[in-house]
């Protein structure tokens, strides 16, 4: 049904009158303030139930293995006690180990030293070196028996 001209005129005037009390910019600001006060957006991490633990694990792993591994991994500070030396070892070996070979595990595993290659051409000393990327190396050495003269 087509509206009568007077009805259209009334509608036009009515809309003009009402729009005087409706300020879109003011309304937007009020709406924004109202929503942020009563219906705020949740923080990003709690969107899903698995986000928080997953992200926490990733951050911890990054810190441990990439950023500062030395803070978390200290092979030199091993708690394994040194086994007592066998009776046969109490006698001084006939030939001293090479000067370059470290004397104890504690001395050997200095944090700031990366051993890239160790060798010995004297005596029965066996040196085993393992190095995987930048992971601190573990060095094991074995004196199977005192050297004989």
């Amino acid at each position, binding site marked *: 049904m087509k509206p009568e*001209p007077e009805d259209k005129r009334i509608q036009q005037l009515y809309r003009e*009158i009402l729009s005087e009390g409706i300020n879109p910019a003011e309304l937007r600001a009020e709406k924004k303030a109202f929503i942020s006060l009563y219906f*705020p957006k949740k923080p990003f991490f709690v969107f899903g139930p698995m986000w928080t633990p997953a992200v926490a694990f990733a951050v911890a792993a990054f810190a441990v293995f990439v950023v500062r591994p030395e803070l978390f991994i200290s092979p030199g500070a091993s708690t394994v006690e040194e086994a007592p030396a066998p009776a046969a070892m109490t006698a001084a070996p006939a030939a001293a180990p090479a000067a370059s070979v470290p004397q104890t595990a504690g001395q050997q595993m200095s944090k700031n030293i990366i051993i890239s290659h160790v060798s010995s051409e004297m005596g029965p000393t066996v040196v085993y070196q393992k190095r995987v990327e930048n992971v601190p190396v573990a060095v094991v050495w074995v004196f199977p028996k005192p050297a004989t003269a």
Partner: protein
Amino acid sequence: MKDPDFELVERARQGDKQAFGKLVNQYYEMVYAVCYGVLHLREAARDTTQDVFLKAFQEIARFKGDSKFKTWLYRVAMNAAIDAFRRRKPSVSLDGTDVSDDEDQAPVIIEDVSPGPREEAAKLEIKGLMKKALEELSPEHKAVLVLREWEGLSYDEIAETLQLELGTVMSRIFYARKKMGDVLRGMGINSQEAVRDRERKK
């Protein structure tokens, strides 16, 4: 037809404030317009609008989805606006002038004191009188008028929204328009002039 707000409403029903915030973002202006259409005061309309959303969030668990969320929200807004209208002090009109009972009965006296062009002055005069005519309407009449003339709802939609008989909606709109039409006729503006005025604007 599926309610376009169905998913947000479902989340809001489970207490998801963020989902309800999106509904607020979507319908804030609509609710404000409806409240202003009944109250005709900005501050009161703003307060009522915010009350409507807070109440809607509390009550949304009871919303069964029999109608669209928008329709339900219209209803909540209308009831809140009408309640607010009845609670407030009578009666300050849109332009800040008091409307007393004596003025309601007084004949319209048109006095052109505006220094501007005659048409502008006449238009301002009409608007002033229209505002007074609107103020004289009951909140129920204002409610149907704002839904029809501002929101553009059909008679059927208004009837569903306000849970009224179709005949009641039609008679209220007829009465409200007649009241405003009386102002136009009182100003000596007949339908032909209205058409000419509109053509001039184009």
